[in-house]
């Protein structure tokens, strides 16, 4: 299902997202003091069920933990930071220091993940907004745990069950810390069209068109 985007638009969306994710990766790299490797962003137009199944396929079908923020502005949707396995203690230790006892680390894991999500998701959203010259408001981060459907279903869009969504995701990994995860955008088609139009306008302006 790719006819929502022509090749030039897909290339433009990928490039804009690449830059935004690069900002997010920079923030994560600073948090863990290691290089963060990124995949090329992939954009798919899927039904919500198919998007959930796709996430399950990529995370091995197990439970994931995620931090989700709803955003709104000229386009709206959800942005998610997803960890397929509970490897986040590494991150927490890196953030708060080696001298914290394990029980306290465990207690703080959820809050630490939310702060990681807050930093990374806002770095990405902020970069997007700055590039496109638009203001984007985001909700406070929320922590979710479960399989694909539970992770992706924000409960805020009751009317879109049968609609398509734009599912845009990037894999990232911190090899030295054995941490990998996904950053995903989910937008309904109406918002996706506004987003693609904004990207197209930005690229046209950049090229002096």
């Amino acid at each position, binding site marked *: 299902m790719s006819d929502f985007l022509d090749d030039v638009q897909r290339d433009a969306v990928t490039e804009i997202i690449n830059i935004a994710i690069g900002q997010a990766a920079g923030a994560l790299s600073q948090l863990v003091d290691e290089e963060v490797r990124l995949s090329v962003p992939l954009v798919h137009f899927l039904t919500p069920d198919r998007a959930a199944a796709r996430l399950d396929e990529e995370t091995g079908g197990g439970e994931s933990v995620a931090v989700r923020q709803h955003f709104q502005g000229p386009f709206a949707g959800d942005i998610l930071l997803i960890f397929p396995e509970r490897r986040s203690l590494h991150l927490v230790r890196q953030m708060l220091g080696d001298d914290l006892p394990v029980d306290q680390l465990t207690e703080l894991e959820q809050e630490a993940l939310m702060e990681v999500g807050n*930093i990374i*998701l*806002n*770095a990405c959203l902020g970069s997007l907004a*700055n590039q496109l010259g638009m203001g984007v408001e985001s909700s*406070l981060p929320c922590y979710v745990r479960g399989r694909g459907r539970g992770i992706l279903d924000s409960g805020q869009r009751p009317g879109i069950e049968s609609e398509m969504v734009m599912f845009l995701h990037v894999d990232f990994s911190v090899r030295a810390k054995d941490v990998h995860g996904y950053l995903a955008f989910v937008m309904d088609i109406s918002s996706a069209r506004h987003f693609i139009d904004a990207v197209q306008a930005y690229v046209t302006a950049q090229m002096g068109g």
Partner: protein
Amino acid sequence: MTATKTVLLVDDSRVARMMTRRMIETDRPGWQIVEAATGEEALEVYSRVLPDFVVLDVNMPGIGGLEAAKRLKAVYPQAVVTLLTANIQDPVRDQAETMGVGFMSKPVRADVLMAFLSTEDE
């Protein structure tokens, strides 16, 4: 030798406060650190403690950091305040500049934070 000062850390995330606290305790041992989890609480703590520096998150439940900074500067124009936020959008930086408060993006680097905490030493 830096004289002992007081820093007010404002963030709804306990982890975020812990990370910033750790940096300050490492580089400025002996400084007093007080905390608040909301903008409203920050205003109350500020009026009671009158800290030398305020490090303020933006996206928080309640009035949020920008409104808290605005109210704080209205009553205490001499307050030394910086935003410390994941929200890196240009309009947030612009509002900080307009209000006369600093802007630092998360995750903050120790040298950037310490430069802010040296503001009064200049």
